[in-house]
């Protein structure tokens, strides 16, 4: 007990928001890309997958964090996998109960959340080392970031691939759908485009800071030389 409580950083808003932008699991950490590319052919599928992942992520991280002082190091991965598999099984039954149609469309990807490296990764890297509250808050932020990324992909793919959003026709019926967007290659294309855009924005932000720093630095230096 005393060993792990060496220096707990306090719970800040940053713990929550890190997963949404700064450490976004898809756009920054590139974790769990298999479902990201596979199920994001429509907004509804993306949203359902995101919510299922949030549930598994929050519940498993909560349990891992609560049990972190009782789990011996040697069997920790096994224990994490059992915990994650449990919640995935629960989600599997719950989605079947909510909508069979949705369940059939998501196919095997619900069961495959078990091996989503985002969830095991967070359990090992965060929940096993941090307090219960912080783990839950961080998992929730990560889950939201993951869902946001899925919906951003799903939105673009559904709009271009079917001319619809959430099943509602957006473009007129004359619009010839870009079928490739619904197919797996479309997932890569859209993910690549989003990464390009986000990295461009990030780089411009940091670029400006560096430019400002060097600019002021130069003036100081030139003054001292002058």
């Amino acid at each position, binding site marked *: 007990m005393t*060993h792990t409580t060496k220096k707990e950083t306090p719970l800040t808003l940053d713990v929550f928001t890190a997963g949404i932008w700064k450490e976004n699991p898809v756009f920054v950490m590139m974790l769990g890309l298999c479902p990201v590319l596979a199920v994001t*052919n429509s907004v509804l599928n993306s949203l359902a997958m995101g919510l299922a992942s949030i549930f598994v992520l929050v519940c498993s991280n909560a*349990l891992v964090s609560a*049990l972190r002082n*009782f*789990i*011996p*190091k*040697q*069997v920790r991965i*096994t*224990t994490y996998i*059992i*915990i994650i*598999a*449990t*919640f995935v*099984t*629960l989600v599997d*039954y*719950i989605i*079947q*109960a909510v*909508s*069979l*149609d949705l369940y*059939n469309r998501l*196919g095997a990807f619900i069961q495959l959340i078990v091996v989503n490296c985002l969830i095991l990764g967070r359990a090992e890297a965060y929940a096993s080392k941090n307090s219960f509250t912080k783990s839950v808050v961080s998992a929730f932020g990560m889950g939201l970031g993951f869902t946001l990324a899925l919906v951003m992909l799903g939105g673009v793919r559904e709009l271009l*691939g079917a001319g619809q959003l959430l099943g509602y026709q957006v473009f007129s019926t004359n619009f010839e*759908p870009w*079928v490739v967007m*619904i*197919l797996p290659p479309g997932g890569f294309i859209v993910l690549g485009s989003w990464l390009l855009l986000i990295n461009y924005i990030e780089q411009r932000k940091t670029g400006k800071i560096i430019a400002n720093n060097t600019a002021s630095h130069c003036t100081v230096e030139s003054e001292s030389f002058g």
Partner: protein
Amino acid sequence: MSTPENQVPELPSSTKLISTLATVAMISGLLVVLVYEYTKPIIAENQRLATERAIFKVLPEAKTRLTFVVDQDKLILANDKTVGELVYAGYDANNRLVGVAINAAAQGYQGTIKILYGYKPDSACITGFDVLKSTETPGFGTKITTDPGFLANFKCLDAQVNVAQSGLINKIITVRYGTKQHDWEIDAISGSTITSNAIGRMLDKSGQAILPVIARNIEQLKQGQQ
């Protein structure tokens, strides 16, 4: 630096490792059983509704239905949980037989396609189908449910049973797009030939096997519940 990080930690006793895993597995089992028991009736009801929706979609005039299981040459009244080849007889408000819904399946482009098709014994026509399960390519193989030209094949697809009641008079066959000449031929969708062929194959296979049984037991079906 009283506790160096690279020091090999002492291995805990096997009893502790085993008891940890056993505890976690027990919690896991308990949760899964609870949710399974709770969602079981809801999932069963969802499945019943899905079957019912499909039956009434292929037999739009039907108001009620009875389930039969095929037992060699006979039809035996059954329910949806019965294991075996199920056929669903649809009746209108006056308890008159309007048609029979039958399952069929075949290998498509990416996996097994399962359909439920409607058969009208009076006119010996296959009058439509509903896809129950399909992993066909979106925008190509999925056209079988939307392509108007393809659906026109099912206004009255000839499926007459021969005199000996051993099979169909004419084999149901998918032909190249635009070359349909007879009522038992299916005009393929250009660009979705493999899926179109699969529909033809599964209708022929199921038709040859099930429709003679329907023909032999037509009086029993017409009697319905009385």
